[in-house]
């Protein structure tokens, strides 16, 4: 993707990992940062067969140009060694100082485990700078200023770098008009370039995959999440939380101590070290509300807190609160919700 005029931020969208809403919000977040840097957005949409609607979404979220890259041998969920091989063919040419118009070049991935690994490994392979999970990125004279959280979400810092190419991960935002993408709109040939690849992809070792014994509703994209903490006291408590989640059509999450204890799987951990979630409603049961946990909940989410300790920190972040023992409240609550169904 040849650059003309303004420098371009490269945004890598993994279409098999993100649903359309997440992908659109990701490109929108990148576009907002690009504006402050004085750059445009080039989106690289990669997948087994990413639909053109992903390209339309990206353009409507602010991407100036889109490369739609398909490869039938890509594994789902993503295998990072395969993606690295694809990206290594594209990014080094696109992120040279000449292509960046003398600015520090920047490539963004979605803030999840795959994005974080790809950003770090590409930075290493291209002798670049890995910036990690950033809440904002701005332009500054000769480089970038990045904002991020440290100490488990207890402190915010601003960092500076002038050494590119830079690689960072960012979270999706709720894109303006996110529910109203016009699928019938035509894309100009200049805006979208198609790459249908079929070359051999690498793999490390031998991978075998099996469906997990428990199929769970994903946290990503869930409107409502019911989540439990250490105070649930054991797996039986989480069975009741699952009943509550089922009654609300919600996904089930857990804090780090709950995952440590084996009551919830690590893929459903919410917090600084787990998933960052942005549901409309987050029902926090027997969760103390540590900064590490709260850092994983979007600022626009309404929190309902249920805790027997009226002094629990969670109530400071909650919109609605109930001081009660969950062992007494949940059965009564689930009974009412079931009756109303």
């Amino acid at each position, binding site marked *: 993707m040849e650059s003309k005029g303004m420098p371009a931020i490269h945004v890598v969208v993994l279409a098999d990992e993100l649903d359309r809403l997440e992908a659109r919000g990701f490109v929108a977040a990148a576009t907002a940062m690009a504006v402050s840097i004085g750059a445009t957005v080039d989106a690289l949409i990669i997948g087994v067969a990413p639909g053109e609607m992903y390209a339309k979404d990206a353009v409507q979220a602010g991407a100036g140009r889109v490369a739609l890259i398909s490869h039938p041998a890509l594994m789902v969920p993503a295998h990072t060694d395969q993606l690295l091989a694809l990206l290594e063919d594209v990014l080094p040419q696109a992120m040279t100082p000449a292509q960046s118009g003398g600015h520090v070049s920047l490539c963004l991935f979605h803030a999840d485990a795959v994005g974080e*690994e790809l950003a770090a*490994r590409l930075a290493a392979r291209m002798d670049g700078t890995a910036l*990690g999970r950033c809440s904002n990125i701005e332009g500054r004279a000769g480089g970038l200023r990045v904002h991020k959280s440290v100490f488990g979400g207890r402190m915010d810092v601003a960092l500076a770098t002038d050494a590119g190419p830079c690689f960072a991960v960012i979270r999706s935002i709720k894109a303006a008009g996110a529910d109203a993408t016009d699928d019938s709109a035509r894309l100009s040939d200049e805006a979208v370039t198609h790459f249908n690849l079929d070359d051999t992809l690498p793999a490390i070792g031998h991978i075998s995959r099996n469906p997990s014994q428990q199929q769970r509703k994903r946290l990503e994209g869930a409107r409502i999440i019911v989540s439990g903490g250490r105070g649930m006291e054991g797996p039986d408590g989480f069975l009741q939380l699952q009943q509550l989640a089922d009654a609300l059509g919600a996904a089930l999450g857990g804090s780090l101590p709950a995952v440590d204890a084996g009551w919830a799987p690590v893929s459903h951990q919410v917090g600084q070290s787990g998933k960052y979630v942005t549901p409309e409603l987050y029902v926090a049961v027997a969760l103390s509300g540590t900064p590490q946990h709260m850092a994983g909940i979007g*600022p626009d989410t309404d929190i309902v807190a249920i805790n027997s300790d009226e002094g629990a920190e969670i109530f*400071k972040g909650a919109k609605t609160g109930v001081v009660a023992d969950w062992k007494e409240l949940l059965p009564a609550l689930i009974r009412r919700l079931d009756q109303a169904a």
Partner: protein
Amino acid sequence: MNIILFISGIADSKWPPPTLQLDPQAAGAAAAAPPKKLSPFDESALECALKIRDADAQTRISVFVVGAPVQESLLRAIASFRLDHVAGLTVVEPELWDARSLARRFGDVLARQTETIDLVLIGREFGDFDDGLLPPYLAEVLRLPFVGLVQEVRCDAGEWIFFRERGDIEERIRVRPAALASITNDKRNRLRFPLMKNIAAAKKAAFVVENTGPGSEARVRLLSSSVRTVSRQQDGCRMLAGSIEAQAEELSAFLLSRVKA
């Protein structure tokens, strides 16, 4: 098998976060650092290594405790698991912001090891400043295969088998040594308690703390820092009062209204 771990620890959250040094040359800030403890991911990585040793007593475990500065209490806590080698590695604070600088420093340390390295384990996040960059970056510096967010490791017929969950998929990845894995928290790798006799031995142990001076120049520097104090809910929390039944009634009505919205 020869296993190497890098462990940083995290600031104990019972204490306020430390003052960060804007000027790397400034003295004194380190003395104000709060005590460190093992992070959940450090603990998981350590337990994974111990389980491998449980299955094969010939396994050697070496741990490098990294800090700016290294805290002796952390060295002793780790040594209480009767490991083959525990040493400190002092870095300077700017390196902690830059995965490239830190990974190169660790690469230099490993290059000096005289024994073959079969496995490098690190918690999925390294200390208070890293959000998952260091392990994959280090794997690239060392040119080792990388497996991230591993929950269990076993050795089978001279090869490593890594287990992890990805959404609704369980993965089993078989890799020939050497490899690098980042370890995440899981009930299978909750750190055991050390034996009292080993705690007593660790209290008397002497440790080598390597201080090789500045590593490669950090490309990322700190501009400012601020402790997060603002509550996310400015309007206060609406508390539901009354008996359990009354609370359940009001809450169910509220939740149903949000489900249908």
